[in-house]
């Protein structure tokens, strides 16, 4: 190899090279962020991450099904009797104990994700032995608070994040 003796002070030499290398490494690493972030939901997908549902025309005892982030949401307007039963059942020995009051913001309205917590089928409304939903795939029964009562499902129907924009509109997500 050609003779390349270095006459410089080694520590000064190293400082320059180290600084340069660190600079370069930082640059290369920051290159990675856009390439990763583009995998995250795009603006059009994020815009649909929350939806507004108009509940003004649902009668007592009626329900509305809306799609949210690709999943069905059951919005159920409960009658006074149904609310009473839901609250009374709080004290029973439930497979997944949860108080009804902890699952609703307004007792009249039950909002749950309509996906069975067992293996993901969509339960049928107004069926099953507990006045709520019945999942036909493997026989899970949910009550009028969306709680699992009988069958293989391990947990109650999930309550999504939601809020009442006003008395006619619920914003989910």
């Amino acid at each position, binding site marked *: 190899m050609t003779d390349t003796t270095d006459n410089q002070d080694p520590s000064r030499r190293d400082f320059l090279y180290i600084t340069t290398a660190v600079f370069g490494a930082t640059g290369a690493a920051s290159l990675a962020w856009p390439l990763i972030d583009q995998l995250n939901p795009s603006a059009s997908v994020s*815009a649909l991450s929350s939806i507004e549902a108009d509940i003004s025309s649902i009668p007592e005892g009626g329900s509305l099904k809306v799609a949210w982030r690709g999943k069905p949401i059951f919005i159920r307007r409960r009658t006074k009797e149904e609310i009473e039963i839901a609250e009374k059942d709080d004290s029973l020995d439930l497979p997944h104990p949860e108080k009804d009051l902890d699952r609703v913001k307004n007792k009249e309205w039950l909002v749950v994700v309509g996906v069975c917590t067992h293996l993901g089928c969509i339960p049928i409304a107004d069926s099953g032995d507990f006045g709520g939903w019945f999942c036909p795939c493997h026989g899970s029964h949910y009550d009028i608070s969306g709680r699992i009562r009988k069958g293989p499902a391990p947990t109650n129907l999930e309550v999504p994040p939601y809020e009442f924009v006003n008395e006619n509109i619920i914003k989910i997500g």
Partner: protein
Amino acid sequence: MNIFKNIFKNNFYFFLILFIISGSVSAAEGTTFKNQKPGFSFEGPFGKFDKESLKRGYQVYSEVCSACHGMKQLSFRNLSQPGGPEFSVEKVKAIASGYSIIDGTNEYGEPIERSMVLTDRFPKPYGSKDEAKAANNGAYPPDLSLIVKARVDGYNYLYSLLNGYEEEIPEDLDIGDLSYNPWFPGGAIAMYQPLYDESVEYEDGTIATIDQMSYDVTNFLAWAAEPTMEERKKLGFIVMGFLFIFLILMYLSVNRLFKDVH
């Protein structure tokens, strides 16, 4: 320095090529006059959009242009996102709810009509391209989402065009029942003059002269064609700054390394 001579040599080719291709990217190629250049706030490496002008421009678009021109790449939510007119979310919801759209069918199979929301695209003026042509003497009013990028020297051209309708037609020009606009290639344009003084009553009280409206709507369309422009220039500043510093460090490193190579 040898290094600089060589860098110059490499970049010389680049500049030569740029010079040559700039000849083919001439201003207002094919039009009668050279475009007017009113100067827009978004021009230059540190350009930003004038948000009030964008808001006014949207008003011009929605009240005048949208009758015939769609903007299908835009959704209402774009109007409130950063980098644009930045209307408040409530304002945009209110704007959107003024339009309706057919979405789905009811239990009898009948189409359901609902008012538009943030996530909906801007309403279409016509059902199809053919319908658009039929309603406009066979000429299709182009979609305006990208019009500024789809024309040479786009924003200056648009501004000149909107501002440049003239009553007096040159004697030797036969334009049939089209309109005369010296900035349009060939001079005969199918679009009738769209803007007159006070066509629009600006919400912010600005006086709506043709010049003002042309300027504002061009601003708006420039944003619509490239809503990420401000973000692009901002990131550009950071990246170029970083690269420049890195360049100096690398230059010093190369010099240091090669000092002893003969």
